[in-house]
């Protein structure tokens, strides 16, 4: 059918099939901005266009529906190099994080402003109501309109930090924001040429089975099929997909394709063909015979005597001793503690022991996993949306038996990671297929695959025992975490260990014990997820603590304050809580926990509780929680940076860190610019390319700001030294007399100085000392600990079991907030995510391993209209002696409070204690019935 329409002001006339969707048509026309975040359910809104001015999902339109119409996308908004005011306002407000949904959000704002010049708050919420974002938490979208209509600046929405600094702690645009608001080529999907092979993975319909025979002959003959990978021709290397530093505390328990199937969805075969349709058709022609094995779906079933064994020792090899025994389905175990918990419980006036549980929760990054691999000059190149490019290079090289020099991994823009993309979850397959065929391969998961075959938050069963005196002193805490590892073991030890190592050290208690274990089951595979076990464990600790405080008649905040650590406290427990090896005891270098609590308490006190005067069956209550996280993993992780002075005295900074949209590249650039006394425009960043940037462990474990930022600081400090040394030679003065001055010059005195530009010319000339290139490496045996306190007010409907979060206040100690608005945005995002986890986000199964809700229709996530009516984030400034520009981590920690604060608030309102996520109406009604 011939369709004619106007696209971004240009007349288009094309012939397309009637049944073709508009989203792929626009992609064919080079429109990047229509992003596909759901399986064409119309739920994510990331593919939005303005169709005759109306915000519309392009995934739900057929070709004839645009005939004769006018389409606007963000590609048509900017005027050449000049950004549209809305694009500028998004950057100014700091709401561009990963940027995957940003084009749709910009169009939503435009459609609204075209209708109303000064829209009220409810219209703003309505305008964005159909677009999901997992990074920002939506709150700061309101600031965009304040900027546009009232001329406000980004700095009007946050205080600025670090007096005396020009850049660190001040509002500056995220350095990649412009490319994202323009929807320039950014994500893997923007880079795919026409001639790639598409992959369809035939997956196991059985939770536990062995392949007896597999016949691919017919499928291979189908025209367009290039290669079929099965267990027969799969590389034989055992490895872990976990993106962790080597040697990983995760078992090497899989091949690219195994003969044994261990969950519904395990890889049976991968077909590479010239189109997705051909790959799918060929996969349907593969004949497989299975020998069915009895499955195991719970921890209890897995550890029962005589339980079916899922892995054998020779197919589950531990690079480190993680205490596993596959013959008992035990993937790993660890225990330890300090003091004498038995005595501690004896000394207590009250002891409470409770068990809590959590399920599979999906990260739902708006951009699914995508990977594009190809051969170039005999080398394997992988362009991918991943958090750990250097780990991926090592894993892929190991699988294929290649030296790392033959593999290049480039992290493109990542449309949300949150831990889901920490592992080599699809890169192993894409790389194998490319290496075998010599051809480019593209893998892009569907939303359903994203839900089921990537990673989830780890289901944990957490037993907490706590004792306290009548005076409110905690005398002993023990925590026992049993984890469902699913079919394979990535992060099996470290997630439950983190649940202990980021909760117990908040308390100055002399007697603490922990025990963790993970069990193989035939469930889907959990992995890393923002918070990494702490949201679950912190919930368990707080619910127990609140119950004790209640029984003792002590106010929860006072109870917490009596028992928390302060600056200078030595955390002996951390020596026990390592990650596959002994940890490092640490003295707390700075602790803003007390200040966070105090700041929140003032507002919290004013929140009313009790029966609603206007709504029958509604009672309100309030609760709070404290939290900590780490800033990277001292003694294990490492980061490096290199900085080069360019010919005009500006700089290129090369960091291996993988910015996931959180602003890590911007953090590194700001720190270097501060140190070198230059503007942000005088520094550019290249990041996360294993060929061109130095090694970095990647972005996980809350390490980006501290590790990558500190590597950038060290590289900049070394550059400063080189600059001074070179300038001393040029100016013929002693280096001790020189200092760097803004904007980019070296001064001996008022009359004796040299600009960076002149210095660059001098050093790079034929008689100079050569280009100034400095490197910085960062490893450490300590890391500054971020803290926080969250406060929630809820309304519980005792008839329906529905709970609304009315008010939420989060206060974080992230050291020095380097990008204040971006940092706050990450807190808003983390809180909204975990409000979803608390109330409704969970994957449900039918008892036979089949998932019932792997889509956004049946697994809803929070949207802008779900924001609490009062929702604020404040960052306090805390100085820490570890580095001059101390950015503690910010994003992960903010996941640790919502369910605890809300759970306690529900108890305050309705007198019930909930012990498992999510707090569904059914569970609340059940608890209310039990109470009665």
């Amino acid at each position, binding site marked *: 059918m011939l369709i004619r329409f106007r696209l971004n002001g240009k007349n288009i006339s094309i012939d397309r099939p*009637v*049944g073709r969707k508009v989203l792929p048509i626009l992609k064919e026309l080079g429109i990047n901005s229509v992003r596909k975040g759901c*399986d064409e359910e119309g739920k994510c809104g990331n593919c939005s266009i303005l169709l005759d001015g109306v915000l519309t999902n392009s995934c739900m339109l*057929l070709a004839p529906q645009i005939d004769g119409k006018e389409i606007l996308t963000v590609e048509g908004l900017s005027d050449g190099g000049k950004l549209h005011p809305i694009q500028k306002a998004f950057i100014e407000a700091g709401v561009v994080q990963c940027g995957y949904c940003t084009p749709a959000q910009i169009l939503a704002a435009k459609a609204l402003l075209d209708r109303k010049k000064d829209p009220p708050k409810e219209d703003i919420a309505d305008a964005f*109501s*159909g677009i999901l974002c997992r990074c920002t938490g939506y709150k700061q979208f309101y600031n965009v309109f304040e900027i546009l209509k009232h001329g406000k600046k980004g700095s009007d929405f946050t205080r600025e930090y670090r007096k005396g600094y020009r850049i660190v702690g001040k509002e500056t645009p995220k350095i990649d924001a412009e490319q994202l608001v323009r929807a320039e080529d950014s994500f893997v999907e923007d880079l795919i040429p026409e001639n790639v092979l598409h992959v369809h993975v035939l997956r196991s319909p059985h939770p536990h089975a062995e392949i007896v025979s597999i016949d691919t002959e017919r499928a291979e003959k189908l025209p367009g099929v290039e290669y079929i990978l099965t267990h027969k021709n799969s590389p034989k290397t055992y490895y872990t997909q976990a993106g962790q530093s080597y040697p990983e505390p995760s078992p090497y328990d899989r091949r690219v394709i195994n003969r044994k199937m261990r969950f519904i969805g395990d890889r049976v075969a991968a077909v590479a063909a010239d189109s997705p349709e051909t790959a799918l058709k060929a996969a349907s022609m593969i004949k497989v015979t299975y020998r069915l094995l009895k499955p195991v779906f719970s921890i209890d079933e897995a550890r029962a005597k005589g339980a079916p064994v899922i892995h054998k020792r020779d197919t589950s090899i531990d690079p480190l001793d993680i205490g596993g025994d596959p013959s008992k389905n035990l993937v790993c175990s660890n225990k330890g503690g300090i003091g004498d918990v038995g005595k501690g419980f004896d000394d207590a006036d009250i002891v409470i022991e409770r068990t809590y549980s959590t399920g599979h929760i999906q990260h739902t990054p708006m951009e699914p996993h995508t990977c594009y691999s190809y051969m170039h000059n005999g080398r394997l190149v992988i362009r991918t949306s991943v958090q750990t490019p250097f780990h991926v290079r090592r894993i892929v090289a190991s699988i294929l038996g290649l030296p790392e020099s033959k593999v290049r991994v480039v992290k493109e823009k990542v449309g949300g990671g949150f831990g889901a993309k920490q592992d080599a979850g699809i890169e192993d397959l894409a790389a194998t297929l490319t290496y075998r065929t010599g051809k480019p391969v593209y893998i892009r998961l569907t939303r359903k695959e994203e839900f089921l075959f990537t990673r989830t938050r780890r289901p944990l069963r957490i037993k907490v025992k706590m004792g306290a005196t009548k005076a409110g002193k905690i005398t002993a805490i023990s925590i026992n975490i049993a984890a469902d590892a699913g079919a394979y073991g990535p992060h099996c030890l470290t997630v439950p260990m983190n649940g202990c190592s980021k909760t117990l050290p908040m308390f100055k208690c002399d007697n603490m014990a922990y025990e963790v274990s993970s069990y193989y089951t035939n469930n889907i595979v959990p992995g890393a997820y923002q918070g990494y076990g702490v949201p679950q464990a912190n919930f368990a600790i707080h619910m127990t603590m609140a119950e004790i405080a209640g029984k003792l008649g002590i106010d929860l905040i006072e109870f917490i304050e009596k028992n928390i650590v302060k600056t200078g406290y030595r955390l002996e427990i951390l020596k026990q809580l390592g990650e596959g090896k002994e940890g490092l005891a640490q003295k707390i270098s700075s602790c803003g926990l007390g200040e966070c609590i105090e700041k929140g308490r003032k507002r919290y006190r004013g929140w009313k509780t009790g029966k609603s005067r206007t709504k029958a069956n509604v009672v309100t209550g309030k609760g709070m929680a404290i939290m900590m996280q780490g800033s990277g993993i001292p003694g294990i992780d490492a980061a490096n940076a290199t900085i080069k002075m360019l010919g005009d005295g500006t700089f290129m900074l090369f960091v291996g860190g993988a910015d996931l949209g959180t602003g890590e590249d911007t953090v590194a650039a700001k720190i270097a610019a501060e140190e070198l006394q230059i503007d942000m425009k005088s520094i550019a960043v290249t990041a996360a390319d294993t060929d061109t940037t130095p090694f970095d462990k990647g972005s996980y474990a809350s390490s980006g700001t501290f590790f990558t930022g500190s590597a950038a600081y060290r590289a900049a400090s070394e550059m400063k030294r080189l600059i001074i040394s070179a300038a001393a030679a040029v100016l013929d003065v002693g280096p001790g007399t020189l200092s760097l001055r803004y904007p980019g010059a070296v001064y001996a005195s008022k009359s004796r100085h040299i600009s960076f530009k002149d210095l660059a010319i001098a050093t790079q000339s034929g008689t100079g000392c050569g280009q100034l290139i400095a490197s910085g490496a960062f490893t450490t045996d300590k890391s500054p600990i971020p803290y926080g306190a969250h406060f929630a007010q809820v309304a519980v409907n005792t*008839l329906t079991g529905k709970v609304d979060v009315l008010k939420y206040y989060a206060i974080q100690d992230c050291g020095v907030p380097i990008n204040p608005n971006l940092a706050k945005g990450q807190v808003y995002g983390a809180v909204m995510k975990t409000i979803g986890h608390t109330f409704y986000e969970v994957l449900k199964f039918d008892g036979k391993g089949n998932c019932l809700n792997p889509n956004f229709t049946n697994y809803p996530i*929070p949207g802008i209209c779900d924001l609490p009516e009062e929702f604020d984030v404040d960052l306090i400034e805390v100085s820490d002696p570890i580095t001059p520009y101390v950015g503690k981590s910010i994003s992960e920690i903010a996941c640790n409070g919502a369910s605890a604060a809300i759970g306690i608030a529900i108890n305050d309102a309705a007198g019930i204690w909930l012990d498992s996520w999510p707090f569904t109406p059914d569970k609340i009604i059940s608890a209310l019935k039990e109470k009665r």
Partner: protein
Amino acid sequence: MEYFSPKKPEEAEKIKNRQGKKNVYLAGGTILNWKSCPSADTLIDLKNLGLDRISVSGGRINIGATVTVQEIADYPGTPGPLARAARTFTGRNIRGSATIGGTVAGGFFVSNLLPVLIAYGAELEICLNGRRKKTGLREWLDKRKGLVCAVTIKPGSRNVFVECEKISAIDFPLIVTAAGFGLKNGKISDPVIAVSGAAARIAVIRVSGAIEGRKPGEIDREFLNESVQKDLRVTDNVKASADIKRRIIKEHICRIMDEASCL
């Protein structure tokens, strides 16, 4: 796939009735294009039928079948309960495409709008076997024959109330309860309660015995709730149990009667 964009409903219906082929109507596309491309032999685009207007005449509001849910929400003459139902229907992106005709024809079991339309006693203008005719929405939903051309309500003749409960704001509703009745001398007449989300079909319950002939302020909510619930089939789904759905319906009935008491 063949494509037609007829100019008259009769033409559209004729194409739809062609034997031996799978022929489908295309309006907003939010049901037809959900998840995948439609598998059909013929696509009958309704965009040129001139059914995209809302008009008011003689106290009646006539809503063309291809009017979108957002247009209903924005139209100044849309009565409050219908506007409210339209505004809370999932997100703005969907509301801008989804049509009233598609909502009716799809018989969408978690619809925000259908219970309200039923409570208003909405009539449909349909094209059936080449002829235009009028039929009640409730009757039509049982048979679903003919092309829906317009939906007509007479807001002044009935008092309508609606309540909606969702898991998250962008989600389809878990339960929508709408109640409608006339008032004669301050007393309730012809009461209807419609519920979507309880089970796979929209439930319509006549509650005459429980409330007919009484003043809204005199209604015993418990008795009314029992009357509704005993005739209501409610099933579990992945989002909530039947028990929770029944509790929500009870809550809705109480809220609706609280509001009705103010009449």
